[in-house]
């Protein structure tokens, strides 16, 4: 995987955006009601491949295929998906981020140069 061949992003805080509060409350209630046995939460769409679709608050949708996975594996997957925020799992360019990187003013070629001409003063009128 090369750095220019794969997407990358900058560090972001987890922004809450979108509708999903009720969905999260229902999901938590479902998880509380689920036993570690063979209870399956079936979505109304009939997919050919069994999938878990996780929609996050920032709009990202993550699909995990669960064919031929045992129940503890699926529950581990579910806990992993619940603990994730929706940010993309791609290369983060810097592990830090600031909105105000420079306090004293960013360097430019004239910061450390003394001015050649002195302060501008009104011209002396010597005729009168």
């Amino acid at each position, binding site marked *: 995987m090369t*750095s220019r061949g794969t997407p990358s992003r900058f560090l972001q805080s987890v922004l809450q955006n979108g509708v999903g509060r009720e969905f999260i409350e229902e999901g938590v209630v479902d998880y509380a009601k689920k036993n570690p046995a063979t209870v399956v939460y079936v979505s109304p769409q009939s997919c050919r491949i069994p999938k878990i679709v996780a929609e996050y608050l920032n709009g990202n949708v993550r699909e995990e295929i669960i064919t031929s996975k045992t129940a503890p594996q699926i529950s581990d997957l579910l806990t992993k998906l619940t603990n994730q925020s929706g940010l993309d799992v791609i290369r983060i360019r810097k592990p830090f981020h600031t909105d105000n990187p*420079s306090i004293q003013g960013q360097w430019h070629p004239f910061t450390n140069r003394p001015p050649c001409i002195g302060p501008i003063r009104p011209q002396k009128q010597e005729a009168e």
Partner: protein
Amino acid sequence: MVFLTLSCWIRSRGPDRYWKVQEVLKHARHFRGRKNRCYSLAVRAVRRAFVYATKARKLKKRNMRTLWISRIAAATREHGMKYPALMHNLTKTSVQLNRRVICDLAVTEPRSFLSLAKLARARQQEGFRAALGDGKEPAGVFSRVVLLQ
């Protein structure tokens, strides 16, 4: 009479060739020329690209360090010093800032960097006085070593 031998010659090959080829080609889509379209050329180009990527992980650290050093050297020369003098005197005053942080200070906080350069110059003058002055004068303020208890 039915011809049966012809039907025995038909083979059913693997059904997944398209996806296996796409797995390789997706890493070659931003290449130039036929390497981004033709599988045989793309396989070699993608392998080389991955090899370069693994080798470059060590080189990136080296390149970033040389970049920081050149930026710090340029910033110190603006203040009338040289890079080796600055780093040596900063370590002698036990300022344990690495090159990355000093480079960021030189770019975004020019006055803090100026204060660091002045500190290093003062320690340098004290070192010269201690070396040339034959020990009769007391050591300077910045030469004192702080012992943490």
